[in-house]
C-alpha cells in the first residue's frame, strides 16, 4: 500500500468526481449571481482542462488518466456526463480532449511578467453542466461509485488507485452513507486502497476546516461523519498541499468542511496532484 505505482499509458490511474446536484446547489453564492452548482461545474471543467494539459505533448494526448463523474440530486443518480460519455463511467483523458460539449470564449486575468495583470481571451471547454434538483441521495451515489470503481480496480490491478473527489453542500437524504463509504475505501489496487476526499460547502456549525487530522476538531455531527469517510492523504498529495501553503500534519485527511464554493478549485487541484510523484513530473 505505497501509493507509488508508476502512472503510464499502459498503467493509468482514475479520477472519479462525485457531485451533489441537489436542489440547494442552486442557491446563489454570496453576492454573486452564480449558484454553487455553477461554481462546481466550472471547477470541474477547469480541472479536466488542467489534467489534459498535463498529458498533452506535441504529438498528442497521452492517456495517463481515466475520468468519470457521478451526479446525484433527487431521483437522478448516475453518470453526470452526457453525449459520447454517457455509455460508460470511465473514459481516457484523450476522449475528453476530442469531445467537449462546447468551447466557450472566456476572459482571464494573467500576470504580464512585469508585476501587472492583463486580461486575455481563453478557450474554455465544457464537458460538465450545472444541475440542481431534489434531495441528496449521497448513499446511493457512493454505492454506484463503489460498483464502478470495483470493476475499474479489477481491470487495473497494478495501477495507482483511483481518487474520488466528492463535493456536497448538505446532509444525505437517503440514510447513513458512512458504511458505504467504508466499503468503497476498502476497494483498491495492488498499490493501495481507493482514496476518498470530501469537500463540504455550506453553512454548518464551526469554522471552516481544511485537511483536518482529528475528528474532535469538527463540531458538526454530520461533519464528523464526513471526516470519518475521508482518506488520509498519501505523502505526495500532502506534499502538494504543503507547497500550496497549507499546514498538513502526517495524518491529515482529504477533508474540507464548511468552506466557500471557491475552495472547490483548490480541492480538485490538490486532489488530482496525488499522482504527481508517480507520474514522474520530476
Amino acid at each position, binding site marked *: 500500500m505505497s501509493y507509488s505505482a*508508476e502512472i*503510464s*499509458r*499502459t498503467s493509468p490511474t482514475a479520477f472519479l468526481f462525485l457531485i451533489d446536484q441537489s436542489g440547494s446547489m442552486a442557491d446563489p453564492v454570496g453576492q454573486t449571481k452564480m449558484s454553487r452548482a455553477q461554481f462546481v461545474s466550472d471547477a470541474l471543467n477547469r480541472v479536466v*482542462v*488542467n489534467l*489534459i*494539459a*498535463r*498529458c*498533452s*505533448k*506535441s504529438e498528442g*494526448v*497521452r492517456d495517463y488518466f481515466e475520468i468519470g463523474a457521478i451526479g446525484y440530486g433527487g431521483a437522478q443518480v448516475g453518470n453526470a456526463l452526457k453525449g459520447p460519455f454517457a455509455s460508460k463511467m470511465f473514459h481516457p483523458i484523450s476522449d475528453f*480532449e476530442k469531445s467537449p460539449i462546447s*468551447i466557450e470564449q472566456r476572459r482571464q486575468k494573467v*500576470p504580464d*511578467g512585469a508585476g501587472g495583470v492583463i486580461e486575455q481571451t481563453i*478557450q474554455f*471547454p465544457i464537458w460538465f453542466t450545472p444541475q440542481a434538483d431534489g434531495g441528496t441521495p449521497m448513499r446511493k451515489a457512493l454505492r454506484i461509485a463503489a460498483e464502478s470503481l470495483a470493476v475499474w480496480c479489477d481491470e487495473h490491478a497494478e495501477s495507482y488507485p483511483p481518487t474520488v473527489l466528492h463535493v456536497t453542500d448538505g446532509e444525505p437524504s437517503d440514510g447513513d452513507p458512512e458504511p458505504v463509504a467504508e466499503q468503497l475505501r476498502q476497494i483498491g489496487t495492488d498499490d493501495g486502497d481507493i482514496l476518498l476526499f470530501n469537500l463540504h460547502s455550506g453553512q454548518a456549525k464551526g469554522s471552516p476546516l481544511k485537511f483536518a487530522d482529528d475528528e474532535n476538531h469538527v463540531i458538526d455531527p454530520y461533519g464528523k461523519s464526513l471526516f470519518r469517510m475521508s482518506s488520509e492523504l498519501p505523502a505526495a498529495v500532502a506534499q502538494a498541499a504543503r*507547497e500550496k501553503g497549507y499546514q498538513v500534519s502526517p495524518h491529515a485527511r482529504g477533508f474540507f468542511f464548511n468552506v466557500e464554493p471557491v475552495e472547490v478549485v483548490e480541492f480538485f487541484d490538490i486532489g488530482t496532484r496525488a499522482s504527481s510523484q508517480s*507520474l*514522474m*513530473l*520530476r
Partner: protein
Amino acid sequence: MRVVRSLSFPKDPDYPDANDDFFFWTTEGFACAMSDGASESFDSRTWGRLLCQVFTQTFSQTPTPALNDTAIRSIVIQARTMFLGIVAQRKLSWSQQAAFDRGNFSSILGLVDAGPDVLVLGIGDTVALWKDPRGQIQSHVLQTPDEFKKHPVLLSSDARGDSVVFERERSRWSVRRLPKSEVLGQRMFLMTDALGCYALELAIAGEWTQCEKALNLPENDFRYWITQSRLQGKMRKDDTTLAIVDLG
C-alpha cells in the same frame, strides 16, 4: 577532453520515441550538454535540445569562456527565441495551447573545456560525477540522493520563469570550476536524474567501483543492468541517459 560513450534509454520501451532526454557535444573546442525535459510539458525535448545545442555551440567557439549569469541568460534567450519560432509554425489545438502555456521545462548540465579548467554548469537534477584527487566521488550540482526528491529548479520556455531560476544561483544551481590538474586522467559521468540518483546512492554506500563497472558495460549489458535495477526498485523508472567524458 572527449566523449567516450553516450547512451539513452526511454522509460517505457513500448514508446521508444517518448524520450525527453538529450545529449549533444561538439569536438571543435570542446563543450557538451545534457538535458532532461519534464514529463508534463508540451515539448520539453525540443526545448532541452535547443538549450544543449546553443550551449555547446556558444562555448565551444569562445576562447576563454566565462560561464556567468549574463552568458547563461543569453543562452536561454537564444534557445527560447528558436523554440518559440518552431512552435509558431505549428497550428496548436486548444489542448496543445493549454499545455504550451504551462511552460516547457528542462534541466541542463553543461561541460566546457576552459583551458586550464573544466567548467560544469548544473541547473536542475541532471548531474556530473567524478573522482577528486583524494579518490572521493564528487557530484554537481545535486550532492545527495535526498536532493533528488525535491522539485528541481528547471529552465522554462516561458520568460516569466527566469526570475525563479536566476535568483537561486548558488542555492539551487551553480557553475563549478575544476582545475584540470586535479582531474587529470579522470572520467566524468554525466547522468539524468534516475541514474544519477542511483549512482550517488551506490557511491555513498561504498559501491562506486561496481557502479563504475556497470556504467562501462557493453550497451546490451548496460541496458540489462538498467532494466534489472528498475525492476528491483533500486532505480526510478524514467528516461535514462549516460555520457562519459574523458577529461584528458
